[in-house]
């Protein structure tokens, strides 16, 4: 009987989790900060458990080690009820307490505070009054605030991840979706019988650009407004229309076209006008990313033989090579401060994410899987999300820029690939 109940519970859990990405921290920092997040008063009765979401967020950053609730000696909900000693003896440095209460107007009141256990004082406290639908947003906002208070870096928990899924055998196997950074609240933007590629966010997060082969099997570049669902074709030239990337001012895209016989970089206005060619050589030029300064574009080029990373000055069209390790470096992305490049590096037949420090000139491999692709940097520069393979299927994983934290985000069905981390929203 017990077994049957367990099986039923498991089956129910599986159904509930199927469509969403589940997250597992595979490698955290050894110096992760111990923090006790006491389950908020009223969380169990609320439709979303705010304190559990905060705990999962901070855990997933790899920089915090939340104390399991079952190990807590006391579970205060108010400032007056805190017994600091109970948390100090468990080695905790910080404490979060609060409550989630339904209000008469149908909204909720979420109040919480962050406390320094060693100094026995409140660092800050604040209150929100979200609707039911906003409870998860509030939880992520709390995580962001705590993360920034304790690390000095803005949190990226309120951001989204855009990605492509492939369910072989489905009527519309290719889907473009986005979800919260923790994998919840999946929304499908486009379903298609033909491939969808290279999704990219506008700098304000309101629009996306991507490549879809839905028009008679040919690649067109679309710009899609997320709120209205309206979209327009930016490019449908003969040959390749690929790899769109937004300018920091949101006015232009750099794209790859092969209309003249060879893949070259072009600049185009978001409305499709003002097409300008940026590169001109016999090699492949593609996979461009706009640098934060708006004056440079980092891209993949085979002009020296195999693929390498190059930096193009948009004003004078000069390009210089920036990657020199190995014979395969491709698909760069850049941190918001412009200091680090992340790209795919091949070594002994294995494809890994590498991080190049443009200031110090160092290069490090930060992943140990072997089919990594499409690295995308979080808007706070802390983590890189990328596509790889586990058990023969495409999954998403994330790694910190310094390689010390690793997080798995396995999907329950189909392949997931080409993640693009949103800007701050």
């Amino acid at each position, binding site marked *: 009987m017990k077994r049957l109940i367990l099986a039923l519970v498991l089956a129910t859990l599986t159904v509930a989790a199927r469509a969403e990405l589940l997250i597992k921290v595979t490698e955290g920092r050894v110096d992760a900060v111990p923090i006790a997040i006491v389950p908020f008063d009223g969380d169990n009765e609320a439709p979303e458990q705010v304190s559990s979401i905060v705990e999962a967020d901070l855990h997933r950053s790899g920089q915090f080690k939340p104390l399991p609730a079952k190990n807590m000696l006391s579970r205060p909900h108010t400032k007056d009820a805190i017994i600091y000693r109970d948390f100090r003896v468990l080695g905790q440095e910080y404490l979060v307490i609060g409550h989630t209460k339904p209000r008469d107007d149908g909204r909720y009141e979420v109040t919480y505070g962050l406390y320094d256990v060693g100094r026995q004082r409140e660092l800050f406290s604040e209150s929100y009054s979200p609707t039911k639908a906003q409870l998860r947003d509030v939880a992520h906002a709390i995580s962001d605030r705590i993360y920034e208070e304790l690390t000095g870096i803005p949190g990226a928990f309120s951001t989204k991840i855009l990605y492509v899924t492939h369910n072989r055998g489905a009527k519309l196997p290719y889907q473009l979706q986005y979800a919260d950074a923790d994998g919840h609240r999946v929304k499908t933007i486009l379903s298609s019988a033909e491939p969808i590629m290279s999704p990219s966010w506008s700098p304000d997060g309101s629009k996306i650009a991507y490549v879809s082969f839905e028009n008679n099997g040919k690649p067109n570049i679309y710009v899609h407004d997320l709120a209205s669902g309206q979209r327009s074709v930016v490019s449908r030239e003969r040959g390749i229309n690929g790899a769109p990337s937004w300018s920091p001012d949101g006015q232009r895209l750099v794209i790859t076209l092969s209309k003249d016989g060879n893949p070259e970089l072009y600049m185009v206005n978001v409305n499709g006008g003002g097409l300008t060619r940026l590169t001109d050589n016999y090699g*492949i030029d593609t996979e461009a990313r706009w640098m934060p300064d708006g004056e440079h574009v980092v891209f993949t080029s085979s002009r020296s033989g195999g693929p390498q990373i190059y930096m193009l000055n948009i004003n004078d069209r000069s390009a210089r090579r920036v990657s020199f390790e190995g014979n395969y470096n491709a698909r760069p992305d850049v941190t918001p401060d412009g200091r680090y490049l992340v790209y795919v590096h091949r070594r002994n037949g294995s494809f890994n994410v590498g991080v190049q420090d443009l200031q110090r000139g160092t290069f490090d491999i930060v992943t140990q899987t072997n089919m990594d692709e499409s690295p995308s940097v979080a808007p706070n520069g802390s983590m890189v999300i990328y596509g790889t393979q586990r058990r023969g299927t495409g999954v998403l994983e994330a790694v910190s820029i310094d390689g010390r934290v690793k997080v798995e985000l396995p999907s329950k069905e189909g392949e997931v690939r080409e993640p693009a981390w949103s800007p701050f929203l």
Partner: protein
Amino acid sequence: MRSFVNPLFAVILAGVLAACSSTPTEQDTSATDTSGMDSQTGTTQPVQRPESTRPDTSSVPLTADNFHNHPSNYDGTTDTRVIYFAFDSNTVPAAAFESLRAHATYLKNNANAKLRLEGHADERGTREYNVALSERRAQAVQKFLRVQGVSSSQLEVVSYGEEKPAAFGHSEMDWAKNRRVELNYVAGRP
């Protein structure tokens, strides 16, 4: 004496073939393949395909390394609809020449026929770079057909990179099957 003449003849024949086709960047080593010369002489076609001159493929084991150039993948007619490529290569394999010449002949004789050349890559490497690489494969087939005299208006190139694999596994053999150009008639299918 016989053992001396034969290789010499083979060298001459290979030279003639190379001079005729002008496309191959790879040496056409199948010197016994005389049907290639038929297609050079214009519309004259053998009533019956000389099967006896086709190499005996049963003795050559099929491996991931020779898959692209294995005779069993190409029947010398327009029934061949997939051309395979070696790793990191966009060279049309010699074993596919006869089939491609058959397509060229068909296209020249059927002006309404339109052929879409769909380039594909294996899953290794980055996606947009693979789109570019697979376009080069489709362009290599396009060039081969153009050299045979096919009108450019009958040919169209689309490249899918690694987005539409033919084999879904992750072995060397799966990858060999995915490095390909598919010949897809969008009009006037033979």
